[in-house]
């Protein structure tokens, strides 16, 4: 089944300079009771975003009208904890297409790539610069170019190159799906099973 193709874009960014934003913050377990993939964005960062009376907390960045865009910028070790893919679904459903951090937890990274959400890993220094740029100007623009693997800070004109597995890059650019690829490998998989018995 094909997915939406990942295309280059320019956007403002939402800064969340918190480290270890774990999956229980991204989407708390009590919101994992759904049996579909949609609608998780409403509860993205639920307990940081809303108080116990379900009122928006004004000091949380997603409630601050000065910040918007398709890029979320966060501190190191983003997405640690649970394997819940709901975390990637929630971020995507909210409207983000890229998360920038100085490093990502492994399972979260895999889940994101399987859902058209691009994790962009940058150096701690570059991350600091990005935060600074947004601090000075909340309308600062950033360009994401997956084809050329660059994340560009338009304010400083700095191109930051990022790593991505070439296979996963092809999948994102073309909207390919791992399962289609594996289903086509059926003869090889069956031969492998035969070889072990």
């Amino acid at each position: 089944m094909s997915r939406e193709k990942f295309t280059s874009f320019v956007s403002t960014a939402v800064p969340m300079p918190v480290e270890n934003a774990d999956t229980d913050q991204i989407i708390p377990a009590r919101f994992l009771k759904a049996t579909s993939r949609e609608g998780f964005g409403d509860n993205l960062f639920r307990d940081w975003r809303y108080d116990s009376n379900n009122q928006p907390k004004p000091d949380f960045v997603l409630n601050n009208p000065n910040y918007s865009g398709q890029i979320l910028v966060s501190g190191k070790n983003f997405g640690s904890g649970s394997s819940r893919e709901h975390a990637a679904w929630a971020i995507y459903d909210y409207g983000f297409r890229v998360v920038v951090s100085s490093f990502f937890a492994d399972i979260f990274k895999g889940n994101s790539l399987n859902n058209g959400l691009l994790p962009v890993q940058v150096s701690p220094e570059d991350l600091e610069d990005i935060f600074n740029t947004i601090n000075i100007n909340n309308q600062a623009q950033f360009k994401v170019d997956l084809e050329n693997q660059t994340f560009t800070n338009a304010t400083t004109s700095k191109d930051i190159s990022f790593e991505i597995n070439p296979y996963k890059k092809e999948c994102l650019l073309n909207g390919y799906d791992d399962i289609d690829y594996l289903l086509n490998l059926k003869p090889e998989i069956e031969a492998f099973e035969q070889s072990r018995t």
Partner: protein
Amino acid sequence: MAKTLFDKIWDAHVVKSMKDGPDVLYIDKHLIHEVTSPQAFAGLEKRGIGVARPENTVATADHNVPTENQHLPIQDQLSRFQVDKLTENCKKFGVTLYGLNHPYQGIVHVIGPQLGHTQPGMTIVCGDSHTSTHGAFGAIAFGIGTSEVEMVLATQCIMQPKPKKMRITVDGVLSAGVTAKDVVLYILAQVTASGGTGHFIEFAGSAIKSLSMEGRMTVCNMSIEMGARGGLIAPDETTFDYIKGKEFAPQGADFDTAVDEWKKLYSDDGAKFDTEFNFDAADIEPMITYGTNPGMGAKVKGKIPAYCEVPESDRKTLEKSLAYMGFNADEQIAGKAVDYVFVGSCTNGRIEDLREVANLVKGKKKADNITAWIVPGSKQVEQQANEEGITKILEEAGFKLRQPGCSACLAMNDDKIPAGKYAVSTSNRNFEGRQGPGARTLLASPLTAAAVAITGKIIDPREII
């Protein structure tokens, strides 16, 4: 060429390697549960395909189930719908299900080993990060997302980049009152909650070898808390003795043949690891966490670090954590008042854990200020606790054994710690809100949790053993 244990197992399961891409890895055992599988089954339906190898797939309901009155319909509508959906999907796709009230039901990582589904040399996946638990048997076991659950259901394969390899060696003898949980919390405090990122960890050394299978499972369980994909331990006689006679393990002559193969599963002398750590068992004491990630741990008798003791880059995180926990830097941990004690989870919900708790509380009484939830990891653990008289000992001390499930570890069901309350928990994560919105979690061993339940405050269990 000298190979690591990890490489031996991984390489034997590669169906196809892709240049610069992930490997196509064959999966021997796929465990599923109600929370991360419905969207995967829906995906199969959309594609019009079935489960490739239902005989290698096992399901249970654990994350979302109540731990009281399991004979009644689940009260929470959404939870009930999710559990019913699992039943419906398993029936439709021909997957064995140990549902609620089945004698084999329980936390997926407790029942796999207990039933003999988990065996050395296997590749095992589940839509749950604590799948790393099964690595204790010398298996490659790791947590996956729902898209990957669908992948494995559809093809019995997964696409994975090969991780780097780390070895953590703990040599020496653990002193009395120091348990597997303390070992892994100690390692976490040294390596940090992200120190294992990108790696698969082999735990080795005489202190690791001295652990029971239950203890080894506790250690491998929390390898994910270091950010690692998983952890594993080379199988030995302890492993084989545990597996022998388990229902779904090889039986009779087949078992002997299997053991001969399993004995080849170890890291060769001179095998290369990308990263190595070495620790001395003598340095390990009962541990507890004070912060909001599992790497923020200290000796129970120790202090929360002062700001000047942590690298400058970590101070903001420490400050945020301590504000959430209501603690101050540089203060003593022991003596702090506690409200809740939770014994259970895939980390410490096995029979050995309940035995440790029972041994400590026998003849004593629960402190009045403590609400204690003791939740067996499975129906089999529950039955064993009844047979061994553990349930009775707990009751005499003022505790009650609940029914099996993940419970307050992730608080998906009604077992939630109220906001602002302190819980000493034998589970695996002390993240903000993990045990309920605003709940404050301190991770510790079952022995420490039992001592806290008796005294009502944080205490080194060695003081009352």
